């Protein structure tokens, strides 16, 4: 009997846990049913006379409620005990402030850089038919966001200035290139630095009034600026052509050689057969070079006094000021640098698309770029790149999931769930890792050995 006693106690406890889990799951079911009843249970549709009518979707509603309840039950019965057991036997606490970089971290960067350089060639070898799509949608698209993420990383990650209107500078760059190229016929390579300068100028212009603001307030004011610029782009029709956008933007050339099928074209000049892949490859390596330039400049700037002033500003503005750092200049340079790279990315975007409209520069873009920076772990270059690949690549992959049509029927369109999942992923990743994927800090100055600082030891002031 002495042996059986703990066994029954254990069984009793398990039964209690199950009862509790069952009750909890019932509550979850009730809440999710009530929550989803109006919007999933009913659908408003327009009939022939343009009146709204209701349709019901109760089977769908019940299925979703069942899925949520099952997930909750699974969490309570399987994951919760597992976490409790793990909490009972914690791994040896890592109490040291710093850690030597792991071998993985040391080799990941060169490997990733090598991979992005050979990526289009790999694609051409593996899927020659769909290569254009894979290089354009995945390669170029992701690299634009990597570059924007790195640019915003200077403002948010290094200087700690929360900017929710970053897309404004992207728009300035894009419209600078589009309008100047169409009006004066300048080439891409002349306008690229010019667009960067104009964006940097706007960065200073918009940065100046917000010097005194911090944190959330700064975020909201920059958001307002971003929206104002977008609304002006929409409403100043004589200048920007409003909603209709600017089309027929000249494509970039390689030292004056255009990428077309004409006699002066790239293919004819080099005596190879014309293929649209040439231009895509050229664009890919251009944006890769621009992104690498952004990363390189950021890494170098961190070693310079201005970069160190940025990071000091992020950690504690008051301490920074009492040490005699000119916070005005520090903030303005951060805004200007960040805006400049957004301007480069913007003019590249305009050149790649050949068409731009205010639709491309909504608040959602700013939110996407900011979320890439925060999810990546603010200040970490690798983290930002990984986050950009995950978020943008993930949403692009949603376009490719045609096989789901066989599961859910032909009306099923995976692309419309893209942003839904994107938003939910933002919430989940924040709950899972509030400090982002790479939460450690790498000081630019160190004693003897290069070490990183764990995120849990980083305490930021307001900035």
């Amino acid at each position, binding site marked *: 009997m002495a042996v059986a006693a703990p066994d029954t106690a254990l069984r009793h406890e398990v039964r209690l846990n199950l009862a509790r889990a069952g009750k909890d799951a019932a509550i979850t079911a009730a809440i999710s049913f009530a929550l989803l009843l109006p*919007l999933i249970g009913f659908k408003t549709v327009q009939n022939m006379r343009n009146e*709204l009518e209701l349709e019901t979707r109760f089977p769908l509603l019940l299925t979703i409620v069942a899925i949520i309840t099952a997930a909750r039950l699974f969490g309570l019965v399987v994951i919760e005990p597992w976490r409790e057991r793990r909490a009972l036997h914690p791994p040896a606490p890592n109490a040291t402030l710093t850690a030597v970089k792991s071998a993985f971290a040391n080799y990941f960067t060169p490997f990733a850089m090598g991979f992005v350089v050979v990526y289009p060639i790999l694609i051409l070898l593996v899927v020659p038919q769909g290569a254009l799509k894979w290089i354009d949608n995945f390669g170029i698209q992701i690299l634009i966001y990597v570059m924007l993420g790195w640019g915003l990383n200077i403002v948010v990650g290094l200087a700690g200035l929360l900017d929710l209107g970053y897309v404004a500078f992207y728009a300035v760059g894009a419209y600078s290139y589009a309008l100047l190229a169409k009006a004066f016929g300048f080439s891409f390579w002349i306008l690229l630095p010019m667009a960067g300068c104009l964006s940097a100028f706007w960065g200073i212009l918009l940065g100046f009034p917000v010097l005194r603001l911090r944190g*959330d307030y700064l975020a909201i*004011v920059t958001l*307002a*600026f971003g929206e104002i610029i977008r609304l002006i782009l929409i409403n100043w029709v004589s200048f920007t052509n409003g909603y209709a956008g600017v089309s027929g933007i000249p494509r970039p050339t390689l030292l004056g050689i255009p990428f077309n099928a004409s006699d002066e074209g790239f293919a004819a000049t080099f005596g190879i057969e014309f293929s649209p892949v040439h231009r895509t490859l050229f664009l890919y390596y251009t944006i890769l070079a621009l992104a690498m330039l952004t990363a390189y400049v950021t890494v170098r700037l961190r070693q310079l006094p201005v970069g160190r002033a940025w990071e000091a500003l992020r950690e504690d503005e008051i301490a920074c000021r009492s040490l005699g750092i000119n916070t005005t200049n520090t903030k303005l340079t951060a805004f200007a640098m960040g805006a400049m790279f957004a301007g480069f990315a913007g003019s590249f975007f305009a050149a790649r698309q050949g068409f731009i409209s205010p639709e491309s520069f909504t608040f959602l873009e700013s939110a996407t770029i900011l979320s890439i920076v925060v999810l990546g772990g603010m200040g970490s270059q690798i983290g930002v790149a990984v986050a950009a690949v995950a978020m943008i690549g993930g949403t692009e992959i949603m376009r490719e999931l045609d096989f789901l049509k066989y599961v859910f029927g032909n009306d099923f369109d995976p692309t419309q769930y893209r942003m*839904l999942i994107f938003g939910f992923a933002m919430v989940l990743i924040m709950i899972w890792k509030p400090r982002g994927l790479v939460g450690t800090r790498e000081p630019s100055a160190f004693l003897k050995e290069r070490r990183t600082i764990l995120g849990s030891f980083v305490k930021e002031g307001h900035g």
Partner: protein
Amino acid sequence: MEVFIQQLINGITLGSIYGLIAIGYTMVFGIIGMVNFAHGDVFMVSAFIGLIMLLILTTWLGMGSVALALFIVLIVSMVFTSLVNWTIERVAYRPLRGSFRLAPLISAIGMSIFLSNFVQVTQGPRNKAIPPLLRDVIVLMHGEYDVTISYRQLIIWAITAVLLAAFWYLVSRTSLGRAQRACEQDQRMAALVGVDVNRTISITFIIGAALAAVAGTMYLMYYGVVNFSDGFVPGIKAFTAAVLGGIGSLPGAVVGGILIGLIETMWSAYFSIDYKDVAAFAVLAITLIFLPQGLLGRPEVEKV
């Protein structure tokens, strides 16, 4: 003159809607110090819930009395929207309380994207229009341009006034309001003297959502059309109202809301209707830059 008075009436109506949303922003900011970015989308969700309830009542049950239908719609929308906001707080904000300062903001932006896309996916991207309700107007002044006030506008004014009175009573005279103000000042101290902080914050979100639901239903009634993307701009304008009135200050939110409503309608009438949103955003930026404590707020003092 007629135009001015007419725009005054329209502006106060619009401002009441903004003011009700702004209370949700200002309360949440006051108590947990975060900008609840998803609040504008909660407002939009409430308008959709109201729309669906209205359709159930009118097309299925054939309810004749518009006033009774509106009353039921209002109550149902308040209940469901409160549940939505309560869940959002539990799922997306509570795990991040006391965390890194940017985390709740990003989580709220994610929630905002999620909500608007959820409505887009479940209800479709098109504008949802309902036949106009309560079209009758009262002519106040005859002239070459009649100044009118519609029953709709009168109802909006009346509901806003009644709700604000009830809300003011709740916050200033009940133990719940006391608990809220205590949490605003110092959460740990409030917990030590026996205030259930989590419950108080949940109730704050519920109240904010209920007021947003009233605003959403009235928005639907006033404009007769709602779209999944309607949460963003009214949300920003309501936030502007909260900032203009002084964030954290409840009377400030209402005053700010009415001011923003007036600025928007007057701007549309006298300058250009295309740039009315620019005016609202510019007010937001100018207020934050030159008057960060707002009209009725307390200045923020930072201690080192």
